[in-house]
């Protein structure tokens, strides 16, 4: 981890949807180490600004970050062509900690929340003997907004389900909320570890349903997001009650997060 951003070079920029792109970055000099699924980097578009972005892929020293262009910095990042330079600080925050998940795995993602979960799914697929059944449940706004479409077919072990809010003509998949897919997943609740990322309303609804089905709260890991600025736990912008999410998160156990998410406007 460094205080100053290190230069990375854009080596890939792939469209995922109309407003979302996946950047692949390789170090232009010194490389940052210690990235794990769940952790995040601060990406600096020179002359524009810096934003936190979760790691969406880790392969052969290349960092993947999926960015939705909704603000000045994220749009600048999305517009970067191969060869452009970006500043990277990190890694920051807590990880999903797949190694401690000994039973079945249940991954539930909503919208761009799939991005931080993608390296976790890839890691689980790479060591199938280390875990039980892998279920991946994905909710998206429309079929066109679905991320990593080319990879999804390989993710079901035994189940990878997708549901959308607004189907397009020709869509033959599910329509509705992501919790409706739980009936199709195969897992033993008391031995399952769940990994949730997406809008907090979705996270709360899903976590409640998982609790109802018997998954202990400490086995439900969620990724939370607040306004991260310094990423080192000093500025306090990302405070959630007693937590500074850039340092104590973004991945938090639901046993800690549940009471905090119940507080209005926290």
């Amino acid at each position: 981890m460094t205080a100053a951003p290190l230069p990375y070079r854009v080596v890939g920029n792939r469209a995922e949807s109309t407003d979302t792109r996946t950047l692949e970055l390789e170090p232009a000099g010194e490389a940052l180490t210690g990235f794990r699924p769940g952790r995040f980097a601060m990406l600096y578009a020179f002359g524009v600004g810096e934003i936190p972005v979760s790691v969406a892929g880790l392969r052969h020293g290349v960092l993947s970050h999926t960015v939705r262009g909704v603000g000045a910095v994220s749009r600048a990042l999305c517009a970067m062509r191969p060869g452009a330079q970006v500043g990277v600080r990190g890694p920051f925050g807590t990880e999903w900690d797949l190694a401690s998940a000994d039973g079945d795995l249940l991954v539930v993602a909503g919208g761009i929340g799939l991005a931080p979960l993608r390296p976790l799914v890839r890691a689980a697929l790479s060591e199938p003997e280390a875990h039980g059944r892998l279920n991946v449940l994905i909710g998206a706004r429309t079929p066109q907004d679905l991320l990593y479409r080319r990879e999804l077919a390989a993710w079901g072990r035994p189940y990878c389900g997708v549901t959308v809010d607004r189907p397009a003509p020709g869509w033959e998949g599910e329509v509705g909320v992501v919790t409706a897919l739980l009936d199709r997943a195969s897992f033993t609740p008391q031995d399952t570890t769940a990994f949730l990322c997406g809008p907090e309303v979705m996270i709360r609804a899903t976590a409640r349903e998982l609790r109802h089905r018997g998954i202990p709260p400490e086995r439900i890991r969620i990724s939370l997001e607040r306004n991260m600025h310094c990423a080192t736990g000093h500025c306090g912008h990302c405070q959630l009650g007693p937590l500074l999410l850039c340092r104590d998160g973004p991945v938090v156990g639901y046993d800690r997060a549940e009471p905090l998410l119940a507080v209005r406007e926290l």
Partner: protein
Amino acid sequence: MRHAGVLAALREGPRARLLALGREVSFAAGTRIFEEGERADRFWIIRNGTVNLDIHVPGRPAAVVDTLGPERLLGWSWLCPPHQWHLGAEAVGQVRAWEFDAAEVLSLCKDDHELDHELLSYVVEVIGRRLRAARTRLLDLYGPYGSGPQP
């Protein structure tokens, strides 16, 4: 046999008495099971396959608003006035289901208060769950700004 959905919600006795009224049916892919506005005089418990629920949009293809899979209850409009389907339903692939005549079930429930209570409780729960899901989706959670403007 392990049950889920509506069959799991009923205890063994009421479940058996309800299933005694059911008959097995199947729908080929693309079959319109019911149409919005038609008289709702039956319901189904899906055994295999998937059913899309849709809303008629004049001049355009019907908009699919929900999907129901195995063990789910298809149809609750038979239970309360005006006894008309407020959505349409279409089989996505081959669908097998138990079909129930609403009048027969309601007649049985008049004398069988155990079934009446358990079935009604389940249907109300289903309606509540679908209402919550619909309200959640009103937030457009996956849109660029999620559940509304940020502070």
